[in-house]
């Protein structure tokens, strides 16, 4: 028995980093919006703790009810049986993963939008990675700039511009694309260790800068500045200085009076009519099934659930899943090649760093070995990685440090003596590599593993890549040089790594492009096949930059919502 509700203008599925931003331009334009969220509101005073057991061991902030049953399976060859993973990056709550993320908040480099054509022009066809399905984005950095700006001011981003309308400022990132104005807030506070790394970076010829963060460096929008207590990672912010959408854009959208939020709403299917147009969504709430009709649907879940929801929404018009009549849903999926992919450079210093407190986004960044910021001639790969050195060290993690070969076993008096001296003297760099889509990596429905509703979970097939490990290893060596210049005595460098299958930076699967035969979404983020279905999230991104994707996801979401407002009559006709 399904209860049919009254039609609204727009239903947004998922109120996380993406959907939580899209609701703002929609409601400000006067559209009547229902936001469906599988989780509920977090209560900062109750739910967020300066406690490693709470956040990092028990994962109490990030563990939601719905996601636990729908973790994707993974296999490393197309003939293997995929195995369900135990950890997942998704989160169900109003605000979604923007609650517990590190809040490093970037614009992509202009190069990221046209990697294929820029590579052909500068290095030739031999430098296009083998087996890649890489295409230029259908939008340029210049197209994105106004939307990046909107997000930086509406969400609240701290940072220092490196390029305002072509004026380069070496206090910021000199490699960034031109921006119309500076950030609304200065960068997060620096600290002694970061100042030390900054100088060391300059001494080896790099261009260090304090990276941007969606965290208040000073009071902003009625909320306080960061308190640097050191439990940002996988934790929420108890003073609301981290600008997750539940404290930034969503309340602003609610203030218009045009947003109705239904929490604990588990969306099961997107419905369509016999012309392939989306008619609304079917969801469960408290065991009851509802149909919410809408003129337009914006799907804004995490990448895995965006893909899965489309594949599960089969109909006579879409027998292989919604918007999938050309078989592109799930293709061009990839995980971001970063620390989860195994690229780790860890340094030991002969002095106490005192980086217990702070925040992961409180850091110094180097872009010299990322993107196309250096000449790749003769190197045999494209792209590279950003290098990020940061604060926030938790005591259990510190004590569980590697021992750099100095003691044989991680127990006993010899080891105790080692960690007594060194637990506060080590740090691991955060290295994020430009990552591209490949033919042999994709997502589809698992034939064996189901969620608690009996629906198949997503399955990721993860093939080997050649370009990314080379780019990552190149950058890791540059990181090693940087740490040594700062006085590190011991370094463990794992090189390029193997790359992740699942990722907290999952990209692709509903790629945005100009060609419906190789992409799911049009250049505005709407399904080529169901024209009143927009898709929000990392799933629309065709490449990963050498940096965290969230601000780009948010700028794209804003742009898609803006387009819906502008072209309302045509899209909903």
């Amino acid at each position, binding site marked *: 028995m399904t209860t049919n509700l009254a039609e609204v203008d727009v239903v947004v599925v998922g109120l996380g980093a993406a959907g939580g931003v899209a609701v703002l331009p929609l409601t400000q334009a006067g559209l009547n919006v229902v936001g469906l969220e599988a989780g509920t509101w977090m209560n900062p005073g*109750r*739910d967020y*703790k*300066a*406690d*490693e*057991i*709470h956040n990092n*061991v*028990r994962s*109490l902030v990030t563990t939601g009810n719905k996601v636990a049953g729908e973790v994707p399976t993974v296999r490393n060859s197309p003939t293997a049986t995929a195995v369900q993973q135990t950890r997942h990056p998704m989160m169900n709550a109003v605000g979604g993963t923007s609650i517990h993320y590190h809040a490093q908040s970037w614009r992509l480099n202009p190069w990221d939008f046209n990697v294929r054509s820029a590579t052909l022009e500068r290095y030739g066809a031999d430098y296009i990675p083998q087996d890649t399905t890489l295409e230029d984005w259908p939008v340029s950095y210049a197209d994105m700039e106004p939307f990046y700006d909107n997000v930086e001011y509406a969400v609240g981003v701290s940072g220092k511009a490196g390029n305002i309308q072509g004026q380069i400022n070496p206090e910021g990132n000199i490699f960034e694309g031109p921006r119309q104005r500076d950030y609304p807030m200065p960068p997060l*506070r620096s*600290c*002694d*260790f970061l100042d*030390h790394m900054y100088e060391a970076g300059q001494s080896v010829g790099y261009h260090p800068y304090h990276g941007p963060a969606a965290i208040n460096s000073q009071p902003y929008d009625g909320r306080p500045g960061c*308190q*640097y*207590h*050191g439990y940002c990672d996988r934790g929420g912010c*108890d003073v609301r200085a981290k600008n997750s959408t539940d404290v930034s854009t969503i309340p602003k959208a609610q203030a218009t009076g045009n947003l109705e939020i239904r929490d604990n709403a588990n969306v099961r299917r997107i419905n369509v009519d016999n012309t392939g147009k989306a008619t609304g969504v079917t969801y469960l709430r408290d065991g009851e099934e509802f149909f919410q009709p809408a003129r337009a649907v914006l799907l804004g879940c995490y990448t895995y659930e965006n893909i899965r929801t489309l594949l599960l929404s089969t109909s006579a018009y879409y027998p292989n899943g919604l918007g999938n009549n050309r078989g592109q849903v799930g293709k061009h999926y990839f995980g971001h090649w970063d620390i989860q992919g195994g690229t780790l450079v860890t340094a030991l210093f002969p*002095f*106490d*760093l*005192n*980086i*217990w*407190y*702070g925040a992961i986004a409180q850091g110094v960044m180097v872009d010299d070995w990322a993107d196309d910021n250096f000449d790749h001639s003769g190197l045999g790969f494209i792209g590279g990685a950003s290098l990020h050195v940061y*604060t926030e060290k938790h*005591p*259990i993690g*510190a*004590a*569980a440090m590697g021992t750099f070969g100095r003691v044989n*076993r*991680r*127990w*006993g*008096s010899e080891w*105790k*003596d080692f*960690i*007594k001296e060194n*637990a*506060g003297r080590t740090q691991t760099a955060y290295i994020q590599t430009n990552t591209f889509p490949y033919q042999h990596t994709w997502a589809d429905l698992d034939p064996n593993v189901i969620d608690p509703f009996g629906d198949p979970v997503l399955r990721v097939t993860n093939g080997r890549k050649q370009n990314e490990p080379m780019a990552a290893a190149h950058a890791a060596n540059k990181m090693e040089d940087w740490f040594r210049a700062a006085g590190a005595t011991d370094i463990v460098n794992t090189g390029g790594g193997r790359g992740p299958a699942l990722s907290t930076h999952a990209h692709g699967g509903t790629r945005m492009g100009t060609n419906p035969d190789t992409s799911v979404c049009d250049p505005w983020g709407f399904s080529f096949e169901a024209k009143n279905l927009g898709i929000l999230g990392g799933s629309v991104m065709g490449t990963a930059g050498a940096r965290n994707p969230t601000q780009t996801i948010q700028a794209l979401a804003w742009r898609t919502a803006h387009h819906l407002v502008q072209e309302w009559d045509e899209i909903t006709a």
Partner: protein
Amino acid sequence: MSEKSSSGRDISRRKVLQSAVSATSVSLIPLTSCTTPVSAPQKLLSREAWLILEAFTDRIIPADANGPGAVAAGVPYYIENSLASWNAEELELLTTGLFALTSAARNRYDLDFQLLSDNNKDALLRDMEDGKIDTFENSAAIFSRLHRLTLEGMFSDPYYGGNQGYIGWDLIGYPGAVMSSTAQMQQMGGRLPPLHTSAYGSDYDGE
């Protein structure tokens, strides 16, 4: 999601464990403050298992010239608490592992594990970690989990029963949980003075 009663300190430890074990939706309840943990029969682990666990954690982080170790910090309490709560699924495996360890001690030295000399305990633990004890299935994986739980107990917020008196945090120089840090608290050049503060503030007084 969270987890405490307002009058936690009035609840006896045994009652805490009983209620935690019997509850279907297990949640953590704050423990009595306990600066000198004692080896006493417990509700969750048998006395025998407790003694083996205590001896295990004592060799992982021994009391020595660098100060008190895991036992003085109450690490076995942390482990038992976690097994009564969020690690309940591991209780059977890890208890079986503790008994397999003491069986190996009896086989090799004719004594229970906790009665061995430190050298003999360490020799057995090395073999356990390396998976070299024939009669001890999954010994390396069980060692790894007990080792990890020992570190968690030593270096977690004392709210959870370990790190009593901030022994673990003092060892590595973590000053304590704060709600706000200053730039001065991020200065290099020597250790910061200990703060001895729990994230649970006045709900917990570890000293």
